[in-house]
């Protein structure tokens, strides 16, 4: 691919003029490869005489569009090649802490591809999409049960959008009490995901961080000192990003409510407690979920996501509108869109969110059922603790001994004694076809490695990961600090990449010529 020139298509204007083929047109045609199946299959020059469809002269193209002209097989090879260079959950273990990179089961993909699911239009009359509405209603109900909330919206199109929705609901609640102006602070623990303070800031709140204790729990004294008439909400994930369950959660909820604030649950770590504990029972008022984490829909990467939000009954009237309703009738149940009412915060996304993701999550929940979901949490927690106990001798393991679904190690000793940093370990893992854990997060742990094996991986793969980690710790530091050695691209100069960003393909093409003229034909 790398050596191919970008070949322009024929000028549209001349094409529509039929027989009048000038010298530049001939030249363009000569460069075109008319025998290629891709062009033929999409119906271009070869099969069809260009026709004048009456596009006014002023709107016709003067210059040829700068897009590559390729045969179908070339395009397929190109993308297959790229996919082989990439690393994904379908290729190997991906223990990215706090991201719950579990395997995306193919039965959920099949369900999302069903004709009656994939070919719907959101503007269709409810009477023609009863099955889809029933599915959404059932998903709402499942989520209510799983997190212990009274009402659910499926609208937010991502986890961060769910957070935003949740805090808008909190703000609407305080506004109704005449406290929109005075309650201007949101509290977060210092181990919080970056999206928590970002969400609070986006909603116009000041962010106040609460420190953690040595055990890894939130410092209750600090929480008491921070809570007051200015507090709008405390955003918390439980278990925390350290994999530590907040054992004082009932006391936390009491303190927060006593201060007139709301308790917000970030569902990022729900996988650890599925079927074992419910945010609603802990005293949370608002919950957002990441379906791509707990319920195994594909992770975004800019694609569609889903971040449903559940609330207690006293907050239900603030939910985004509409929700799906169910009504009994003599002919059986009827499903419909139901407006939330005048107190609703409005819409946070078109229609009812990303339907395809909701279908996958519904399929996942139905496939496993209550017992299965609980087994998922148990296995994920067992895997994390097994792995932690195996790796602990080689690293510094701060915080509590037993964790939930993920654990944090520090490579600080390794850095001090052998000059090997967490980033070096992350790079070296790639040489073993393994993705790195989350690194340098949370910030409160020096040289942090945050590992979440999830329930997806078989014991053999967990063992292989541990063996590779131990090997890296013990091997020649020089090999580790210069890794990766087996990837298509070696260690990148990150400082250079950060300072001289290349953000368009035209610029990239120019730079490739500039930096290494011979490399364009080398591959």
């Amino acid at each position, binding site marked *: 691919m790398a050596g191919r020139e970008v070949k322009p298509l024929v000028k549209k204007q001349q094409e529509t003029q039929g027989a009048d083929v000038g010298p530049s047109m001939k030249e363009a045609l000569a460069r075109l490869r008319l025998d290629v199946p891709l062009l033929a299959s999409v119906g271009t020059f070869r099969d069809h005489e260009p026709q004048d469809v009456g596009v006014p002269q002023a709107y016709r193209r003067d210059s040829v569009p700068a897009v590559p002209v390729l045969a179908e097989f070339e395009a397929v090879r190109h993308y297959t090649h790229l996919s082989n260079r990439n690393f994904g959950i379908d290729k190997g273990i991906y223990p990215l802490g706090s991201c719950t990179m579990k395997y995306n089961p193919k039965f959920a993909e099949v369900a999302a591809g069903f004709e009656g699911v994939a070919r719907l239009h959101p503007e269709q009359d409810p009477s023609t999409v009863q099955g889809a509405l029933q599915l959404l209603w059932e998903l709402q109900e499942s989520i209510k049960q799983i997190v212990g909330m009274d009402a659910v919206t499926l609208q937010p199109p991502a986890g961060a959008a769910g957070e935003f929705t949740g805090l808008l609901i909190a703000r609407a609640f305080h506004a109704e009490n005449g406290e929109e102006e005075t309650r201007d602070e949101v509290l977060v623990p*210092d181990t919080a995901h970056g999206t928590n303070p970002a969400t609070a800031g986006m909603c116009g709140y000041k*962010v106040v961080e609460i420190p953690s204790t040595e055990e890894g729990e939130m410092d209750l004294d600090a929480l008491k000192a921070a809570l007051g008439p200015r507090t709008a909400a405390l955003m918390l994930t439980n278990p925390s990003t350290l994999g530590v369950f907040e054992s004082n959660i009932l006391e936390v909820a009491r303190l927060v409510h006593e201060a007139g604030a709301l308790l917000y649950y970030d569902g990022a770590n729900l996988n650890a407690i599925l079927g074992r504990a419910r945010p609603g029972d802990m005293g949370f008022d608002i919950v957002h979920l990441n379906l791509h984490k707990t319920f195994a829909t594909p992770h975004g990467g800019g694609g569609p996501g889903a971040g449903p939000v559940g609330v207690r009954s006293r907050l239900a009237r603030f939910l985004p509108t509409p929700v799906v309703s169910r009504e009994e009738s003599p002919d059986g149940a009827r499903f419909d869109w139901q407006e939330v009412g005048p107190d609703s915060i409005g819409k946070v996304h078109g229609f009812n969110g990303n339907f395809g993701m909701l279908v996958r999550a519904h399929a996942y929940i139905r496939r496993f059922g209550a017992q299965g979901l609980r087994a998922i949490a148990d296995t994920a927690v067992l895997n994390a603790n097994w792995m932690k106990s195996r790796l602990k001798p080689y690293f510094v393991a701060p915080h509590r001994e037993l964790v939930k679904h993920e654990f944090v190690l520090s490579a600080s000793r390794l850095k001090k004694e052998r*000059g090997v940093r967490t980033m070096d370990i992350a790079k070296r893992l790639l040489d073993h076809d393994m993705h790195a854990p989350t690194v340098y997060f949370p910030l*409160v742990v020096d040289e942090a490695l945050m590992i979440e094996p999830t329930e997806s991986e078989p014991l053999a793969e967990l063992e292989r990961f541990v063996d590779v980690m131990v090997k890296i710790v013990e091997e020649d530091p020089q090999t580790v*600090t210069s890794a990766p050695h087996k990837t298509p691209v070696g260690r990148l100069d990150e400082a250079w990449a950060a300072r001289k960003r290349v953000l368009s393909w035209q610029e990239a093409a120019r730079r490739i010529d500039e930096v290494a003229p011979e490399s364009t034909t080398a591959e």
Partner: protein
Amino acid sequence: MVLRFGFVVNPVAGIGGPAGLKGSDEVAFEAAEKGYEPMALQKAERFLARLKQVAHPGSIRIFTAPGVLGGQATAATGWKTGSLGAESFDDDPFATDREDTKRAAAAAVELEMDLLVFVGGDGTARDVVDAVGQDIVVLGVPAGVKMFSECFAETPEAAADLLAQIAAPPFKEGDPVQWLEGDLLDLDEEAYRQGRVEPRSHGVVRVPDSKHVMAAKCPLSAGSDTSGVVGGVVERMSEVPDALFVLGAGSTLMAIKQALEVEGSLIGVDVVEKDGSGRPWRLVVRDVDAHALEEQVIAAQQAGRPVVLVLAPLGGQGSVIGRGTGPLGPRVVEAALPENVWVAATREKLASLRDGVLYVDAGDAALNQRLPAFLRVITGPGREKLMRVAKQ
């Protein structure tokens, strides 16, 4: 394509630490008598050995003083070096003194080196900066007992990695090494030996810009970006326009003073207020002493104006108000209680505090009792972090 740097080792650095002497400035003989070996040469060799591994061949040229001041370590690790001076020194580390460090450092400036690398601690850093001021970018290989100054890499290996990174393409000969300002700090060693922590600022040192380092984390505490903190403090200051602001010392506060466009002092305390005319902020007193500050504070209180202290914790150690904070007496601290003691620091700086707490000593036991158990540290615009206060 060659980076040229001067290299000097303080051969007795660090000897006082294991001996429990909290610094080595005047006690090297005492430590040696107790049977302790200087660790600095070993640290120097670790640094040089790593540099040999990670630097592109031919991208670095070292100029060093002879013997224990550098030549011995470079020879042991197989480096060919240029010379920082022809003086010959005894091989006995205890025969050298700080004048040797200074002479070697000055020679590096004389010879127009790109950078100066020293092996030592805070005391060595002070000697180096005494000799070179801000004429050259300085990097410390940590080998001392105290390393409060913002010029040290985390380990000898990290220092080598940083240098290799600076010398790597696109670096070209003649390119100035990008730098940041760091605080040069040191404790009064005599006081420290008696159990009192009183770090003082001794000026500014130019350190390599940490953007040369791998993105995730920088080995220099000075590397963290304080612009968010500065923005957060200025935003909050604007919310109390009638207040009298007492701005502390150090590089974080200096950045705030610069943002306010006042000619503040780096190592002293300044008094600032909102100005109605022309510039938004006015410097009331620069580098104020204790008496003058007290007068200003009393006058402001009599006029019914709030008094706000804006301070930064000492990197690594966490002292916000202490006996080393100069003119901030009990009367001044009391005027700012309970809500107007503001602390400013990046989250990275807070995360690197070795005890995880802020130390405050208002100089009066009764007043210390009235200090809050937690202080809200401003970490950015609309962002604060609660930190536990340890009262001394």
